[in-house]
C-alpha cells in the first residue's frame, strides 16, 4: 500500500516536471530572447559607424530603456511565435507564476551581482565589471534552469556566458563594448540553439 502511494507521489512529481518542461521544449524562448539580444547588441555597434546624433544614442543606450525594450520585446515575440507555430499543434498553456525557491535565490544572486558590477565601475578595473556582469547573466540562466524543470541547455548557456565574460575581460576590451559584445554573441547562440531545439521538437510532433 505504502509503495503504491509512494509511486503515486513520484508520478505526480514527474507529471508536474513534464508540464513545466512543456513550455520550454519548443525552443521559442531562445529564439525570441536571442532576437532581442541580437538587436540590442547590433544596435550598439551599428550606430558607432553611422552619423546618429549623440542625444539619440544616449537615449537609446539608457539601461532602463534597453531593459524595457528587451523585456517587452521578448514577451511580445515569444507569444507571437507560440501563437503562430506551437499552440495550434500542442495546445495552449500559460505557465504558472509560482517559482521554486532555487529560482528566487538565483534571481536574487543575479540581481546582487549586477548591482556589484555597477558599483565596481568606479573603483575597480574594467575587467572585474565585465566578469561580474557576465556572472549576473549566468545566474539568470541558472534561474531559468530551475524554472524550466531542470532543462540542461540553460546550464550550458550559463557556462557559456561566464566563459565568454572571462575571455573578453582578459582580452582587454573595455566596459560598455564588452557587455554589448557578450549580449550580441549570446543572442546569436540563443537563436541557433532555439532553431535546433525547434527542429527536434517539430520532428517529434510529426512522428
Amino acid at each position, binding site marked *: 500500500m505504502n509503495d503504491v*502511494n*509512494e509511486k503515486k507521489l513520484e508520478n*505526480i512529481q514527474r*507529471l508536474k516536471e513534464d508540464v*513545466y518542461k512543456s513550455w520550454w521544449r519548443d525552443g521559442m524562448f531562445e529564439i525570441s530572447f536571442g532576437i532581442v539580444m541580437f538587436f540590442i547588441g547590433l544596435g550598439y555597434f551599428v550606430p558607432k559607424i553611422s552619423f546618429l546624433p549623440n542625444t539619440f544614442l544616449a537615449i537609446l543606450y539608457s539601461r532602463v530603456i534597453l531593459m524595457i525594450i528587451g523585456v517587452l520585446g521578448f514577451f511580445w515575440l515569444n507569444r507571437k511565435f507560440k501563437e503562430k507555430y506551437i499552440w495550434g499543434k*500542442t*495546445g495552449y498553456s500559460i*505557465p504558472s*507564476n509560482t517559482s521554486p525557491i532555487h529560482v528566487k535565490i538565483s534571481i536574487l544572486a543575479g540581481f546582487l551581482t549586477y548591482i556589484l558590477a555597477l558599483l565596481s565601475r568606479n573603483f575597480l578595473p574594467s575587467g572585474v565589471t565585465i566578469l561580474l556582469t557576465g556572472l549576473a547573466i549566468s545566474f539568470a540562466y541558472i534561474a531559468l534552469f530551475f524554472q524550466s524543470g531542470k532543462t540542461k541547455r540553460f546550464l550550458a548557456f550559463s557556462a557559456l556566458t561566464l566563459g565568454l565574460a572571462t575571455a573578453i575581460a582578459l582580452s582587454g576590451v573595455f566596459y560598455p563594448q564588452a557587455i554589448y559584445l557578450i549580449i550580441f554573441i549570446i543572442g546569436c547562440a540563443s537563436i541557433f540553439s532555439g532553431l535546433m531545439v525547434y527542429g527536434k521538437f517539430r520532428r517529434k510532433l510529426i512522428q
Partner: protein
Amino acid sequence: MKDKEIIKDIIALERLVHEPSRLAILTILSGVKEADFTFLLRISALTRGNLSVHLSKLEEAGYVNVNKRFINKMPNTVYNLTKEGRKAFTDYLKNMEKIIKRKKKEK
C-alpha cells in the same frame, strides 16, 4: 492507535481527487496558469471522452474554472484551477505524504 490515525488520514483523502485521471488533470493544472483542452489531452494521454467527463466532474465540484472563447473563429476551451481546487490538491498531497511518513516510521 497508530493504525487508527492512518485510517483517519486515508479517509481524509478526498475521493474526487484520489481518482488517477482526475489527479493527473489537477496535477497538470496546478503547474499552469491556464491550459486548453488540447494541451490537457496531450499531456494527460487520456481519451477525449474520458478527459471531458472528468473535467465536468471537477467543474461541478468547483475545482476547475472553464472559459469558452474563439480563436480565429475556432472554439477554444480554457481551464484553470480555482482556489478551492488548488487547496483540495495541496491538502491531498499533504495527506498522502503524512500516510507515507507514518508507515515508514512504523517499519
